[in-house]
């Protein structure tokens, strides 16, 4: 069954806060749910499917259904870290195609910045079989991604300056976003001269830690056509996990080499057709890896692709993360997948900031990496079209 055209994204909302001192996690989820419903022009009674991941409090879908007073006939708590909302869009399209729901709400929210709990992956589950073999050695997000960057440099000659261009592009976009945490335009020199966090990744190679969240409404085509918002069709989806493969560790590629082709095949398009891409940017290296694995450039040539403004809207070959992304705007709940889809929807609707709006943006891609890049993560790819 192809999901191409089976559902539309009819509502999208991003929470304006970046530090939620006085807002609980559940309130943030509630705020974004309301915002997305208002954006779509729908009411709570229209929602019959709900999707969330591990950032939702308590029992997840059950707790949120109770808090918001939802009457549901379909729930899905697929959890794969930061890429989860991208999988949720695909799963919502599946559920709609299967007749399990008509209008699906997806929420993501969190307050790691206010809570002071950041930078580490989820607290280790003592029953996870890998934990005893890894935790004693102090793996953090930064050094796990640092190893990926180091290996990429070794294999392909990628440089810190090339990685820095990814941050430079994000900062060019963030200057136009009044909500962005980091609005200052930075240079390659600023990035490579910022303090080293974990070799070879500098502070400005890392995303921000922020509070907030976002929500999406995915609906059946007949419902989408009755609403007043521009039509954004789900055209292609793909998902795949990648892991340490029984010890055959290979840090040179991500699971996007599997999720990407599935999404492109379902959509019936190729990377050169994509006008705008939201790429998960937990670190600069994350973006570089996805560009190669999704086929925007050949493996090993990502550095060349991004340098000299390759990702800057209006200048480069592929405008990316025009909201400033995780590198400059926000990274709510330490999960960037939701905001990736939201900015892609803005671009397709023509509602991005005029300074970064891509002309005739009719085909966009959002890609997420949830977990540790290259070593243990799940990738999700979503291709959307404005009708």
């Amino acid at each position: 069954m192809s999901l191409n055209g089976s559902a539309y994204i009819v509502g999208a909302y991003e929470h304006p806060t970046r530090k939620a001192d006085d807002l609980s996690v559940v309130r943030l989820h509630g705020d974004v749910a309301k915002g997305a419903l208002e954006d779509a022009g729908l009411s709570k009674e229209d929602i019959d499917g709900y999707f969330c991941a591990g950032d939702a409090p308590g029992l997840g879908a059950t707790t949120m259904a109770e808090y918001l007073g939802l009457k549901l006939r379909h729930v899905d708590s697929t959890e794969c870290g930061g890429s989860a909302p991208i999988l949720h869009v695909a799963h919502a399209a599946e559920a709609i195609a299967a007749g399990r729901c008509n209008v699906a709400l997806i929420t993501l929210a969190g307050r790691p910045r206010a809570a002071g709990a950041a930078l580490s992956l989820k607290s280790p589950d003592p029953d996870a079989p890998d934990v005893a073999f890894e935790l004693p050695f102090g793996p953090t997000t930064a050094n796990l991604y640092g190893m990926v960057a180091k290996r990429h440099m070794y294999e392909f000659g990628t440089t810190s300056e090339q990685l820095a261009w990814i941050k430079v592009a994000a900062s060019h976009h963030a200057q136009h976003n009044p909500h962005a945490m980091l609005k200052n335009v930075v240079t390659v020199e600023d990035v490579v001269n910022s303090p080293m966090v974990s070799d070879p990744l500098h502070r400005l190679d890392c995303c921000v830690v922020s509070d907030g969240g976002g929500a999406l409404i995915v609906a059946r085509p007949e419902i989408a056509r009755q609403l007043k918002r521009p039509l954004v069709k789900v055209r292609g989806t793909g998902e795949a996990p990648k892991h340490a493969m029984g010890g055959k560790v290979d840090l040179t590629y991500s699971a996007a080499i599997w999720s990407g082709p599935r999404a492109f095949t379902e959509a019936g398009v190729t990377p050169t057709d994509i006008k705008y891409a939201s790429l998960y940017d937990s670190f600069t290296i994350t973006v570089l890896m996805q560009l190669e694995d999704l086929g925007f450039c050949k493996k090993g040539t990502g550095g060349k692709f991004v340098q000299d403004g390759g990702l800057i809207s209006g200048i480069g070959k592929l405008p990316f993360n025009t909201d400033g992304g995780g590198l400059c705007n926000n990274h709510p709940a330490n999960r960037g997948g939701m905001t990736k889809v939201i900015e892609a929807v803005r671009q397709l609707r023509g509602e991005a900031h005029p300074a970064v709006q891509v002309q005739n943006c009719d085909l966009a891609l959002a890609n997420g990496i949830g977990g540790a890049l290259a070593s243990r993560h799940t990738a999700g790819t979503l291709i959307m079209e404005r009708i």
Partner: protein
Amino acid sequence: MSETKPLGRKIMSPRILPEVAPFWQAANEGKLLLKRCDDCREVHYYPRDICPHCLSINTSWFASSGEGRIYSFSTMAIKDAVYTLAYVTLDEGVSLLTNILDAEPKTLRIGQRVRAVFWPSEDGQSVTMFTPF
């Protein structure tokens, strides 16, 4: 302190699940054990009762040479916690997550030969780290 000894950083103790108890016992005796599948003959890591390559439950422990090469590494540079996380690919073909000890981080390189050393974690259980030859 230029060395990457894990001094000043807590080495969290592993929670020992029953199927890997022999691995940890051997580590306390200064040996690195691996698992090989008796059916497909593939070596895997982290060790399991069930082979991740063919799902056979016929898997056996054997002693690794404890020697290999650095596959990749990254040195954390935050406050006192200067330590080097690495993947080391053992001569038996599997890669494991570890730390590199007793080496100036700037001198480390991918492909460098290293050998296993054993370092006590918080509760005294030894864990396997590596040091350059």
